């Protein structure tokens, strides 16, 4: 039976997809249309997050009036913004018995003797983040974009994003930097480290004003701290003390200094997004984008990545797909692929633990 592995792409030049979506809780509108070309900074959707509502009893001020009369007494249009202290209902906006807005917001309901004001919601704007074309519009939610360039998909992000230049860590690692240096190196940049994030690394990052961090892993003990950070953080491997695969390090080294979009999306289960680093580059020249191997059955020659110990993060090529079950050290028996990871001997990795890595 064919097997269709998940895909998590790490590829120098490819066509990629980016879902630019409002948070699930937001209500909003899409600002672009299908087929439209967009640039990195173009807003593609804008919306607002739910906010508190305030119920005001109009009767003590305006008397018992029916719904139509109450609406006639409104001094502002339903849905129009009002500032705290603005008169919102009464016979005259400047004098007499009036009801005043208790907070910034908008009147959303008048009836049954009450006026309801929605406090000013937090507005969210989603930028394209990549140079490309709109391939699908999800009304009220956002768009799917297609672009080309370098793509490194991660496994976890803290829900922030940034567009800025990439910068590799020093050879001695980020921990070797002083957190309170006046040196502006790394400031506001997307800093890449091949080592797991530690508490010291976070101290350095905050002290020196890093723009963002891309790292292979971190301990779950740092999770709450990293989720509170304003700077985007993306992990490429997972939680624990896992080092970055040398092939990813080599690819990122080539990109040092380039402008990139880091979308460290905090991906909820079943969301169509991946945290990812994108460097938009138009097709053409010597390097043509490779097709993306998603949705195709696993076969020999495919580039894959192992997701679990003892080979977490290893990249390699499938050289065989044996049909017999293989017994793992714990005793589970499962189908495995034989993968060439560049070591002397190929290794057997359960099919369930393989992801397509792209070409």
């Amino acid at each position, binding site marked *: 039976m064919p097997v269709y592995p998940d895909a998590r792409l790490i590829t120098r030049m490819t066509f990629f997809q980016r879902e630019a979506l409002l948070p699930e809780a937001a209500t909003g509108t899409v600002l672009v249309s299908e087929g439209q070309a967009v640039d990195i900074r173009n807003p593609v959707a804008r919306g607002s997050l739910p906010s508190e*509502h305030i119920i005001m009893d109009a009767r003590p001020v305006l008397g018992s009036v029916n719904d139509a009369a109450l609406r006639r007494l409104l001094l502002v249009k339903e849905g129009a913004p009002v500032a705290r202290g603005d008169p919102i209902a009464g016979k005259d906006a400047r004098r007499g018995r009036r009801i005043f807005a208790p907070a910034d917001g908008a009147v959303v309901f008048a009836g049954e003797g009450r006026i309801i004001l929605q406090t000013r919601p937090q507005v969210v704007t989603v930028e394209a983040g990549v140079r490309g074309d709109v391939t699908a519009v999800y009304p009220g939610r956002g768009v799917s974009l297609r672009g080309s360039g370098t793509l490194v998909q991660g496994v976890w992000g803290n829900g922030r994003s940034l567009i800025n230049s990439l910068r590799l860590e020093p050879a001695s690692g980020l921990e070797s930097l002083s957190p309170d240096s006046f040196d502006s190196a790394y400031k506001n940049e997307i800093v890449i480290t091949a080592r797991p994030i530690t508490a010291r690394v976070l101290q350095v990052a905050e002290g020196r004003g890093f723009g963002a961090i891309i790292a292979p892993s971190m301990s779950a003990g740092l999770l709450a701290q990293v989720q509170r950070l304003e700077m985007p953080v993306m992990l490429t491997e997972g939680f624990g003390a896992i080092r970055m695969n040398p092939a990813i390090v080599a690819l990122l080294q080539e990109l040092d200094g380039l402008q990139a979009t880091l979308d460290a999306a905090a991906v909820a289960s079943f969301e169509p997004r991946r945290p990812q680093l994108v460097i938009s580059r138009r097709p053409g020249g010597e390097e043509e984008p490779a097709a993306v191997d998603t949705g195709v059955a696993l076969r020999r020659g495919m580039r894959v990545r192992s997701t679990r110990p003892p080979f977490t993060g290893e990249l390699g090529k499938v050289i065989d797909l044996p049909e017999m079950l293989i017994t793992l050290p714990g005793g589970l028996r499962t189908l495995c692929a034989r993968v060439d990871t560049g070591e002397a001997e190929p290794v057997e990795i359960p099919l369930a633990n393989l992801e397509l890595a792209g070409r």
Partner: protein
Amino acid sequence: MAEANSRPSSGAVLAADFGSVTTRVLLLDVVDGEYRLVARGSTGTTIGYPANDVGPGLQRVLRDMSSATGRNFFRPDGGLIMPETGDRAGVDYFVVTASAGRPMRVLLVGLMPGISLFSMQQVIRGTYIESAGELHLEDGRDEQGRLNAALLSRPDVIFIAGGTEGGAQAALLTLLKPVALAVQLMDETRRPVVLYAGNSRLFETVRAQFGDLTGLLTAENVRPTMTQTRLDAALRELGRAYDVYKERQGAGFYEIGQMSSTGVQPTAATYRLAADYFARQYGDTLALDVGSSSSLVAAVLAGQSSITVNAGVGVGHSARSLLEQVGEAALAAWLPFYPEPDELLNYALNKTLRPASIPVTLREFYLEYAFVRAGLGWLLEQARPGWTGVPRDAPPPPLALIVAGGAALTATGSPAASLMLIADAVRPAGITAIKADPLGMIPAAGGLATLHPAAAVQLLDSQHLEHLGTVISLSGVPVVDQPAIRLTIKPADGDTIKTEIAGGHVLFLPLPASLSMELDLRVVGGLNIGGKRRVRCTLTGGTAGVLIDARGRPLLTGDDVPTRAQNLVRWWQEATEIVHEIPPEWLEAPPAPALPDMAALTGEEAAAEAPRRGWFGLRRRAPAAPPADEADALDDLLADLDSPAEADPAAPRRGLTGKLTTPAADDLDALRRG
């Protein structure tokens, strides 16, 4: 939803079950007068990146099945061919079940926490629900607070109940007002479905308040009197709400639901149907499903049916939530090592990121199955209040049958391993037949039940459910390594074997499905098997065989890591013949957290020498060498693991009583080989 004929046909059936990780598709057709499985396929569920549409996964499987069977499923426009044509293209029925995707968020609105709310909580335990909160008369909120609670919780369904039949109405009306206002203020495209199952005198009032705003479902009052509960009608309507929710949710469910003959049914409901059906044949039954994002227990005990679904207990997407609910101590009870700081949370988070992945290393194997064993054990505890007639603090009732679904329990690649894991997780009492559903036959049969009950029965009775075998469980607390069960085995075609099983051990007897054996079990004083001191039975085999569990109840894995390591390794070996070599460093206690600052502050430099106390004056366990008997046990364990017996299958092994080979054990080994 596609229209189905009122009279069941005898054409082919396509059944698709969309799990959080795996989409399983079965093609069922009549063979020799009965419905049988003729083809199957599975693939990763294509919700999430990149497609976020279950359709491509289904099409992928159907293409593969089409290649394998020659049957064409699709019309040129991409739709499913229904009904089946004369040239055996398409199918007569397409049934769809799902547990994939975000659970349905339900806001409960009832009068009193212990009465109507309690009944409503029992109803919502029957499907994939995430609580969006509760509004009731004692919630401490005013009208504005209730309005905001309803608006900001973003429910998919508002479930309203309260008031006995013919009882007072004013109190419930007080709660309905802000809820109706909240629905009115919501974006029209996002308004929740309202389900009302309260005092029927308020039906028209509820209809007037919500009918023009959103979809309204009504059901029989869940609490017609103070002492009566009627949950089934509300549960059925909640199933309809689930269908509406799935179709609204996107991810391709609308299109799939339109093609299907039954809409999108919750997979959980099919487990309840299966449990009800099997209980009529076997007696008290549990049907379990341990999934990636949710798990469930459907129980039929003493004729009373119940189901508990927990959308936060799973071993993939919900691994972190499982850890939070179950707690580290419950997981550590199944680990032969001291977890490193954050190791359990690291593991859980990595599973949420790659829910389909499986453990390769020995350490991850133990972590994975600690989540499964502890998670299922915890879920059973949560389910117990719903088991009518079973006191919560009483020992587990003897079970006639356990049916298990979900890859964690059924896709081990070894029937004996699956049998052992189910015994560990459920810890049944008495004599219990064990079946597994690795193919997804329960969702298919349950999904088909309303359309074609006879076909559903034929599928559940078929051999496509894997009969793993039988677990015989000793209750009481046996003395470890002392005889607990005296056993006489009469194989159908062999000599009688007499042996003893020591307390704290398990004995696995491989017995193929085609064979049977008579067993006569006598337990020593104070112990019992399903309440009896002597049990005689004839058992037919299965893909695994018979597991006699003399570990006693409650099942204790050990108070310390070396004991646990010894027990877990031995039990696994006795059940599966797989030997786990535990690295010696796993058994070394990590250094206790040092308190240098306290010592420095108080100047008590000798603090490190003295027995230390924690922050609350409790004595910490010193990281000292184990006591002599413990160290001996450890040496025994390590010597055992290094034993040449494992290198030579014919060499004497540690046998039934934990002692080296006895003549009876030789006989049993011959039985194993035979």
